[in-house]
């Protein structure tokens, strides 16, 4: 019983520490994209989530789902 607890405790500790290291090392790309979108919408006065509408889209632009 004590062994199990100790094992669980160690696993928990290792994962918690790994989690902290993750926070410190990796750049949160998805969160940064969201933040960038919010700021750009504000600076360019776009409605939130608005993607440019036009008759033609540049072929070089990445295809994107139309959000309504």
């Amino acid at each position, binding site marked *: 019983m004590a062994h199990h607890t100790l094992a669980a405790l160690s696993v928990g500790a290792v994962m918690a520490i790994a989690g902290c290291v993750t926070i410190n090392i990796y750049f949160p790309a998805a969160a940064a994209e969201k933040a960038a979108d919010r700021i750009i919408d504000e600076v360019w006065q*776009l409605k939130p989530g608005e993607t440019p509408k036009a008759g033609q889209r540049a072929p070089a632009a990445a295809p994107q789902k139309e959000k309504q």
Partner: protein
Amino acid sequence: MSRRIGVLAAAGLLAAWALLALAQANLEINTPAIASLQASMQQRHAQLSPLYDSGAVGLTRDGNVALRDANAVPLAQRQPVTGLIAAENQDRAALYREIARANGHPEWEQDVRATFAQRWIQKARPGWYYQNASGAWVRK
């Protein structure tokens, strides 16, 4: 006693995960410095927007703006436009730096810049010019 420790460990683990999820869900952008840069850029956009439309100014691949076609700007306006571009790039650099700093990671500045570079281009209006990965100007 040992069961109690186990429960505590599980709770701690859950809390760590929750914190991790929270930390990755959002970046802090609600600081006075960021708000004032945002306001300054928003104001400048009224002058930059027609320059994007005419193709005189384009969005660079590194998250800045640049003079793309000087001929699209009347001679008398070239100096003010150059100043406008310099001011915009100064604000953008400060914005990227401030976002990285506000989140406790000044070393993220280049990542923030790269993210913005993509998003500016993604959100650019059709007809505006941007630089592709090799630096060539492309009309959106």
